[in-house]
């Protein structure tokens, strides 16, 4: 009985489909990578450090040609000149361009790890630093967009609350739906803000502007990986 329930449960079917995609598996490997990093710091484990390196390499394989997706998205946002909010549109364009640059430079990192290109000052230090800078600017664009969305949603909520207090007993179903959507948008933007802030924490430590303990960096990676897996799970 328990086995039947487990096998035919919709969540199991969904999880199988989640793992069958390239993106879902990449998110799982990201979680494993940062968990291995955390364990490496906690236990001074050589095995965990080796696993971290292995998962990092495999993730870079899985992200091959992913810059194309971001460039396509940037072009779409740029062409959408009729968007209601130009600030959000510009932030989306910048975010996708920076992420495309980050992933493109990451391909160079992969080739260096595979020893296809030799380790020099350029490939060993400068390009990793440039890729982290691109990741940081992409995240900053995301942060700006999230703040804008929070501001917009909050303004909508305030307007509806004021309208409700003025016209007592005159609530419509449409108003409730729009108000609910505004609350949902604000929550989504806040969640994304937290996500981008945690990723920014990771990249600032990579660049050396922050010098937090590595275990905190690893835990940030675990948290952002879980958030990413949640989004992929909903999309499945």
């Amino acid at each position, binding site marked *: 009985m328990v086995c039947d329930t487990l096998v035919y449960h919709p969540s199991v079917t969904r999880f199988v489909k989640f793992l069958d995609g*390239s993106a879902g*598996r990449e998110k799982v490997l990201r979680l494993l990578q940062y968990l291995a990093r955390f364990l490496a710091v906690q236990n001074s484990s050589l095995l965990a450090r080796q696993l971290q390196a292995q998962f990092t390499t495999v993730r870079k394989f*899985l992200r091959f040609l992913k810059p194309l997706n971001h460039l396509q998205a940037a072009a779409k946002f740029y062409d959408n000149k009729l968007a209601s909010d130009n600030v959000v549109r510009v932030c989306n364009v910048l975010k996708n361009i920076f992420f495309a640059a980050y992933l493109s430079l990451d391909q160079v990192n992969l080739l260096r790890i595979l020893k296809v290109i030799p380790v020099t000052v350029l490939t060993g230090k400068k390009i990793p630093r440039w890729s982290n800078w691109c990741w940081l600017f992409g995240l900053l664009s995301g942060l700006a967009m999230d703040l804008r969305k929070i501001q917009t949603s909050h303004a909508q909520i305030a307007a509806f609350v004021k309208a409700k207090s003025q016209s007592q007993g005159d609530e419509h179903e449409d108003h409730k739906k729009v108000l609910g959507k505004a609350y949902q948008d604000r929550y989504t933007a806040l969640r994304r803000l937290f996500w981008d802030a945690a990723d920014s924490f990771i990249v600032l430590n990579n660049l050396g502007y922050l010098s937090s303990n590595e275990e905190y960096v690893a835990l940030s990676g675990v948290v952002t990986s879980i958030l990413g897996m949640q989004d992929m799970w909903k999309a499945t």
Partner: protein
Amino acid sequence: MSQFGTTDIVSGSETPPYSGASYQDAQDDNTHPHSSDAGAEKFSAGSGSESHTESSRSDDEDSQAKTKMVDNITILKYILDSLSGRDKLAKIIKYALDILKLFIEKSKRNLTVLDPSVLTYYTKILKNLTVKVALRHPITVIKVLLLSLLRNFDKKIDFISQQLSTFRYILRFGGTPFRVCSFLGKFNKTRKCNFQIDQIKKIWFNEASLREFLDLYYGIFDELDLLYKLKIWTNKSFYSFVSRQESLAWQYDILLSLKDHWLNLQSLQKRQLELEVQLKVQNNALLLSPILMHQAHKDDGSQSPIRKQLLNDLNVNNDAEVLIHKQLKAIKDEKTLVYLDIARLSFDCMANTSDILNLKTPKGTYAVLSLGSGLTGLVKLWITTKRSLCSSKD
């Protein structure tokens, strides 16, 4: 679960450790008959909807337009977004590099055999490499530099090949817990029937259960192999056993898939023959119809309404002919996919057989066969992706 583990340990102790050649990765998830059937159903449904087109000319133009809509970049993007696409590309790159490595080793050997002094002066020249030395001994310096370059490539190719192998293992990882749950579900179903022999035969003694068992058998040892590669466990004698069992499981899976595809091919050929006979009969009927019409005009008085209706039906029968042509095309397309699968599985079977039986084959045989398997798999994947994109754009 514990009983299964106990059985595994007992069988492990009974089997002598395998002392063959080092195991090379060429495993590939074979196409199951279910996906082939699903593809067939999809395409037959598509051809059914296409039969409603009014004229064959506009239909041909539409099909050409649909084919042109999907460009190669889009197909490549879809293939790379899927795990199976990345697996095929990784396989092709890995074995292409292995073959390249053989050529490099051959070049190194030729270089050292023809001129033994290269090895003598190798380290000396590399340490004191200047323009003066190069001008004094140009041929020797060129040979030394070439040898150094080849050695460098050799090490790099080894590393990349190993990384790609681990990458492919990780792509396959993760399926075993679900297969175990499915198997336990079946066992639970058997227990509910109070172990009646008829029910046991119905549940267990069929191809689907055999397929599930082989997938579980292969998956367990494949994932144990990956965990060994990641150094999570390090027992070398047990690794020999695991490696051996993985090869055997893969061989059983290949043979079962080959059998399925062969039977599928036979049924497709039978259907094709039936449709061709039907088409021939209709063509003969159409050839006879003008003669009958001519005679009908001569003997106008004897023509009955039923006879007239039959003659009209014969002339209007082009729709059926168009439908038969579409079905024949669908069958030919499906046969192409089956042939590709049979070729791929044959390559895998030959490669794995040389590994299991420890055959003394020329160097690179395994890599060439595996490269052939990867390429045919990629061609099949390309064709199926192209067709699915064309049908989705309708």
